[in-house]
C-alpha cells in the first residue's frame, strides 16, 4: 500500500494548483420523473444545491431518494425532466474529459490487464500513448497497485479492483469526480481505508467531488457539506456543513462533534421514514 498520507507517491505529480481550482456543479430546481409500469415515480423533486470548485459534497439518503439519479444526470447519462444542471459552467453531457465517474462495481473489463483497464479512458479521449502509459503506472502506484499492472482484473480482490477503478477515473486528470457508492460493496475495513485514501487524494489534488452514499458516517467523514435526501419523492431535506478539519484523520470519527452530526442527520432521515420502509 502506497503511503498516500505522506505524499511520497504523489511528489512526482503536479500539485492541485494545476487544476486552477477545479470546476463547480450547480443543480437548480431539478425534477426527474420516471414513467414505469406501476405509474409515475418522482425520483427527484425540486433539488437545488451546488458544489463549489474543489469542494467535496456527499448526497446521502436511503435507497429511492434519487441520489444516484442526480449523479447520473450530472454525468449526462440521464436527461433531467426539468430544471437546470450545469457542470463546469455548461449543461451536463457525457464524454467530457474534465469529468470522471466511478460506480459501485469496479467495471473492469476482464480481457484487459489492470493497466490496460486504467488506460481505457485515454484511448477514447485520444490522449498520447506514452505519457498516458507513464501516468497510468504512476496512478497504480498511488492507489497501491504497483506490481499488479500486468495482472488480469479477476486476480485482484474486490478492494484492489476498486483501487484500479479509482486509478482509471484519475487517468484522464478530471477536474470533477462523480462517485456512485464506490466502496459500498467492500468490507468495512477496506472501505474505511479507501475512504481515508480518497480523502487524502482529494486534499492533495483539490478536485471537486460529488459522492453518493447511503452511509451517513462515511458522508460526514469525507465531505465538506452533506446533502441529506429523503425518498418518495426524492427531495433534499437539508444541506449540512461538516466543518471537520483537513487533512481528515480516522480519529475524527470518534469526536463528539462528529458523532453529534451523524446523529443529527440520522434523526433527520428517520423523521421522514415511511412506515413500509421500516
Amino acid at each position: 500500500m502506497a503511503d498516500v498520507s505522506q505524499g511520497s507517491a504523489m511528489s512526482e505529480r503536479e500539485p492541485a494548483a494545476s487544476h486552477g481550482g477545479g470546476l463547480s456543479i450547480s443543480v437548480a430546481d431539478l425534477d426527474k420523473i420516471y414513467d414505469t409500469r406501476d405509474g409515475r415515480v418522482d425520483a427527484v423533486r425540486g433539488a437545488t444545491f451546488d458544489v463549489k470548485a474543489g469542494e467535496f459534497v456527499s448526497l446521502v439518503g436511503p435507497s429511492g431518494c434519487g441520489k444516484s439519479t442526480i449523479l447520473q444526470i450530472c454525468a449526462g447519462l440521464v436527461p433531467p425532466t426539468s430544471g437546470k444542471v450545469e457542470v463546469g459552467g455548461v449543461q451536463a453531457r457525457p464524454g467530457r474529459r474534465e469529468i470522471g465517474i466511478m460506480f459501485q462495481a469496479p467495471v473492469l473489463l476482464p480481457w484487459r490487464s489492470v493497466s490496460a483497464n486504467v488506460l481505457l479512458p485515454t484511448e477514447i479521449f485520444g490522449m498520447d500513448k506514452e505519457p498516458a502509459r507513464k501516468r497510468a503506472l504512476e496512478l497504480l502506484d498511488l492507489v497501491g497497485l504497483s506490481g499488479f499492472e500486468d495482472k488480469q482484473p479477476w486476480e485482484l480482490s474486490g478492494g484492489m479492483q476498486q483501487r484500479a477503478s479509482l486509478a482509471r477515473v484519475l487517468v484522464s486528470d478530471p477536474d470533477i469526480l462523480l462517485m456512485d457508492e464506490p466502496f459500498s460493496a467492500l468490507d468495512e475495513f477496506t472501505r474505511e481505508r479507501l475512504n481515508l485514501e480518497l480523502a487524502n487524494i482529494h486534499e492533495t489534488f483539490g478536485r471537486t467531488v460529488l459522492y453518493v452514499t447511503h452511509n451517513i458516517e462515511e458522508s460526514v467523514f469525507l465531505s465538506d457539506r452533506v446533502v441529506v435526501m429523503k425518498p418518495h419523492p426524492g427531495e433534499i431535506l437539508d444541506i449540512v456543513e461538516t466543518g471537520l478539519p483537513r487533512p481528515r484523520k480516522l480519529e475524527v470519527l470518534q469526536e463528539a462533534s462528529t458523532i453529534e452530526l451523524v446523529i443529527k442527520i440520522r434523526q433527520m432521515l428517520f423523521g421522514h421514514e415511511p412506515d413500509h420502509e421500516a
Partner: protein
Amino acid sequence: MARDVGTVSAPVEVHGGLWSRLRGDSWVALVVPPVITTAVLFVIWEFVSTSGMVDEIILPAPTSIVEAMGELIGESFFWEATWVTTQEALIGFAAGVLIAWVLGTLIGLFRGFSLAVYPPVIAFQIMPRVALAPVFLTWFGFGITSKIVMAATICFFPVLVNTILGMQGVSKDARALMRSLGASKWEEYRKLLLPASLPAIFASLKVAIALALIGAIVAEFLGASEGMGVLLRELSFQLQIAESFAVLVALSVLGLVLYGLAALLESRLIFWRGR
C-alpha cells in the same frame, strides 16, 4: 480438535490410492468411470452379437467393426469421402458462422434492424430446416454446394442467438462507463460489446461445428455422388453393416476432432471466459 480431524480422515487413507484419487478432481476421476462404462457395454454387445442372440447382420460385433475399420482406412475411397464431407462441413460452418455473427451483431447493435429482422429469422429457425434439403438440391445441384448451404443453414442459429445474447449480457455499468467517456457507437462496439460477446460466440461454435456436420451428412443422404453420407448409404444398401458401423465411428471421430479444435481455439483465445 486436531485428533478428531485425524480420526475422521482416517478411513479415506485406509482405502488410499485409486479410491481417494477417484474421489478427487484428478484426471483419474474423469477418465476411469466412463472407460469402465464403455468397456462393460462393449463386452455385453460383443457377447450379444457373437452368441447369436442378435443376428450379426443387424448388429455386428465390436470386433467385426474394428476389423471393417481396419480395412476401410486402407482404402482411398474412404479418405476421399472423409475429405469431401469435412470440406462441406467446414465451409458450411465458416459461412454459417460469418453470416450469423454479422446478422447477430447488427441485431444487437441497432434496435430498428432488430425489430425488422429478428422475427423472420426466428420463424426461419422454427421451420425444420432439414426439410429444405430437397429444395437446396434443386437449387444448387448434386455437387458440394448444396451440402455447404445445408450445413450453413443448420449451424447458423445457435451462433446468431449467442451473438445477440453475448451483446445483451454486457453490464449496464460498463455501457454507462463507455457512454460517460463519450465513446462512439463504433468504439463502444470494438472496445466493449465485441470482446464481451466473444465467450458466448465461441461457446456456440462448438455446437455449430457438430450441427454443420449433421447438415452435410443429411444433404449427402438425399442426393450426392461422394462423401461419407453416400458411403454410409451404399454400405447399408449392400448389407455391409459392420462397414456401415465403421463409417459411423469414423464420423464420430471426425465430429470429435472438429469439436476439439473449436474447444481448443476457445480456450486459447477466450482466456477470460467465465470471469
